[in-house]
């Protein structure tokens, strides 16, 4: 008879607990909202990205997933014409440049407010520029504000590093004047980049947007960046469920422009490409990015819309010049014949036909054909393994070992399958008489940190253009990074002809006159051969049948406000 009373007691205790829990719990649902509306426009658009964003303060961001979100909630002075790399007005309706190319006067849009109600005006614009220029400590470290450093240079707190930024004035509410220290090809195109979006001064101050934590490369972000990003865009930030990898943004009812086509967008992080595809096929998401080329046909047959982006990118095999202290590169690479041997060893045509989607092209230089400054008069290196072997023998470097770095756990617009690309090129190299030693690292941050510090002998990397100017490609790669050497990724090659040709193009204020100068730069580069260009590849987004209005951008800078579902 022992167990009975105990059992009853236990049972009643359990029931009591359950009942009290049920009583305490209540639904957070907004009764009027209910399930997704089937009305005209509105509804939720669910989009699958390839990874998690870092946080939502674009001044500190470098990755595409973060920018995908921030592009919807912030705006800059300028933007890109949808589907192109051309500039278009955004928060600035128009601008004027002074004769010497140093002063830009922007006429700002009126009647715009930030999501927190603060007015947008010239003071807000200057507040943002001054904020960036005055970064110090962790905020000014390479890991934090990379885009400012790559484009504008230094800060007020780093007088040794020259800066493009001279100052910002706000003569009246709707006029902002930016002064530069020198003429540059980057302006004003660089203002369309997502890192230079204008953020609410009130929110920036209120939530301590500059107080980064952590140490060295392991940064922790601010309350502003994680919870209260505030811009002027068609959507505003709602929430970030990190456990499930879902970012939610909702329609901004007070937006100055056309109202967005949906009420809400949820960005889901789905790192595995196969899973993204299956999610779309199962109907759990309405679209995703970085479609594997092998899936294009299957998806089209299934009634989905594959939206190709123009191939505004370059994939290259970087080579190490051995000029960076603290790194040990294969000295054989300093012999031009060895580099030429590598260039002749790579079977670009087979790579393009078999590994890349339709519309891909073999690259003969480091800018895509659509960019002003591309020329076919460069030295080309046709696929010729016999010639490679001859060159190697001549240089006395037959069998030399190359440490070949390639990334894992990633898919890039110019490199959909790094593993496959590595396998094919490494076989090309071994057939030509090299020995290959593979090193694979996860893309972010290990791989990027390693190759950008000059750890590899050869490595795979690429670049999608930020705007339509050749310097954005070849200048970013091969310009003098200080002390007469190229940046560490390329092992600090010393190439004076390349440097001067690039500088000539960059400092030319007349945009029309830049083309021929860049062509000369491309010729110089392909003669020096600091790296080997491989391919330009289109890449694509895909959306469900009932989705309209998503215009693919060659810069991967899609605007989701024109999207409608159903």
């Amino acid at each position: 008879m022992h167990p009975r009373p105990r059992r009853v007691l236990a049972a009643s205790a359990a029931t009591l607990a359950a009942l009290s829990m049920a009583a305490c719990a209540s639904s957070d649902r907004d009764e009027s909202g209910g399930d997704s509306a089937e009305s005209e426009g509105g509804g939720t658009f669910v989009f699958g990205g390839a990874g998690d964003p870092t946080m939502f303060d674009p001044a500190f961001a470098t990755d595409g997933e973060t920018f995908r979100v921030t592009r919807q909630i912030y705006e800059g002075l300028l933007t890109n014409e949808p589907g192109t790399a051309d500039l278009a007005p955004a928060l600035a309706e128009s601008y004027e440049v002074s004769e010497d190319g140093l002063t830009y006067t922007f006429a700002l849009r009126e009647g715009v407010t930030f999501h927190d109600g603060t007015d947008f005006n010239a003071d807000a614009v200057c507040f943002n520029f001054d904020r960036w220029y005055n970064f110090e400590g962790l905020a000014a470290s390479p890991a934090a504000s990379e885009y400012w450093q790559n484009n504008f240079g230094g800060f007020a707190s780093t007088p040794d590093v020259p800066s493009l930024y001279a100052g910002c004035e706000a003569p009246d509410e709707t006029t902002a004047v930016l002064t530069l220290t020198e003429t540059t090809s980057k302006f004003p195109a660089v203002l369309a980049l997502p890192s230079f979006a204008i953020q609410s001064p009130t929110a920036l101050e209120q939530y301590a947007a500059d107080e980064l934590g952590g140490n060295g490369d392991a940064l922790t972000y601010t309350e502003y960046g994680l919870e209260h990003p505030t811009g002027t865009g068609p959507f505003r930030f709602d929430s970030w469920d990190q456990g499930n990898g879902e970012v939610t943004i909702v329609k901004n009812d007070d937006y100055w422009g056309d109202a967005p086509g949906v009420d809400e967008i949820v960005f889901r992080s789905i790192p595995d490409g196969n899973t993204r595809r299956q999610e779309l096929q199962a109907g759990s998401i309405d679209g995703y990015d970085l479609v594997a080329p092998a899936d294009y046909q299957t998806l089209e047959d299934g009634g989905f819309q594959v939206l190709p982006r123009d191939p505004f990118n370059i994939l290259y095999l970087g080579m190490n010049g051995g000029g960076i202290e603290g790194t040990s590169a294969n000295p054989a690479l300093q012999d031009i014949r060895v580099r030429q041997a590598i260039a002749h060893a790579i079977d670009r045509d087979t790579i393009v036909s078999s590994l890349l989607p339709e519309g891909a092209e073999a690259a003969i230089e480091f800018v895509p054909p659509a960019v002003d400054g591309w020329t076919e008069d460069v030295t080309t290196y046709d696929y010729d393994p016999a010639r490679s072997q001859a060159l190697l023998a001549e240089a006395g470097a037959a069998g030399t070992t190359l440490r070949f770095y390639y990334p894992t756990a990633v898919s890039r617009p110019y490199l959909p399958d790094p593993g496959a690309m590595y396998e094919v090129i490494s076989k090309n190299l071994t057939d030509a008489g090299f020995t290959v030693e593979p090193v694979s690292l996860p893309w972010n941050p290990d791989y990027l940190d390693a190759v950008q510090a000059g750890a590899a002998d050869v490595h795979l990397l690429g670049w999608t253009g930020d705007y339509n100017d050749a310097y954005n490609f070849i200048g970013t790669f091969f310009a003098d990074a200080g002390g007469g050497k190229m940046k560490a990724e390329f092992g600090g090659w010393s190439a004076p002809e390349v440097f001067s040709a690039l500088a000539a193009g960059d400092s030319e204020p007349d945009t029309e006159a830049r083309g021929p100068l860049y062509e000369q730069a491309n010729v110089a580069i392909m003669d020096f051969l600091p790296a080997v260009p491989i391919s330009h590849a289109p890449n694509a987004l895909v959306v469900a049948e009932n989705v309209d209005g998503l215009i693919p951008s060659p810069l991967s800078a899609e605007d989701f406000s024109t999207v409608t579902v159903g």
Partner: protein
Amino acid sequence: MTASLGNRRERIDALAARAGQVPDDGGGVSLTRSAFRRLRRDPVAILGAVIVVLFLLVAVFAPWLAPRDPLEQALLSEVRQGFIPGAREGFPLGVDQLGRDELSRLIYGSRQSLMIGVISTVLGAAAGMALGVLAGAFGGWVDTVVMRFVDIILSIPGLLMAISISVLLGQNQYALMIAIAVTQVPVFARLLRGSMLAQRDSDYAVAAKALGVKPSRIVLGHVLPNSLSPVIVQATLSLATAIIEAAALSYLGLGDPNIGRPEWGAMLSNAQAVLSFRPQLAIYPALCIIVVALGFTLLGESLREALDPKFRR
């Protein structure tokens, strides 16, 4: 922890005891012989044995059996995104995403599986047996310490343990083998300990000790041979597990960094990207893994049933 394996332990103890009571003429011969006779008539055992032998033959004679070099990207120029050439002359099972002959890759892949499976099981068994003998022979606090150590290993679930070790030792095949070996240690340790404990009190052991025979001779000459049958059974079963675990670790990206080298788990993982238009590339390696694992399991289970007097069919 000790209670949960009580049932199995009892059985093994009984088996070991049975084996120990046989007069010393090589150890348990008549039991083994009768078991063998039973096995020869058991269709399941035959099937398992055939699979295992075939697998061993293919792995050993791979270079002669495979039609082509598994690394040669022979038909790469015909591969397209969304299309992979199928079976044709010279390529009986078609090619993979980089134009390499699939059949050759499967054949060479058996070598990897065999090597990883055998080495990790041998390592795990050796280490486990050593620990088990130590625990059983010395008893007392040695026994407690060793078994606690084994419990600690057991407290980390198998795959997680393998992951930790792979990460620690870097991404290479030897790390994989050691990682899997470690997960095999506890089973063998308990097996041998049980065997030791059962035999310590057997007539033979007591008599030998009284006669002054050195303990090491008792262990090597008597205990180990008598524990052979359950160890073989367990080793066969562990091999099956090892092969599957190796595939899982490859799937998680912890396998051979030399990604071109054919290995069934890696081939299966890579095939998922092309499943919609060339599912064969996933089915072939999966079948290989399943059939081989099954073969070892069938053989091991049949051996166990044949050697266990309690089990009546």
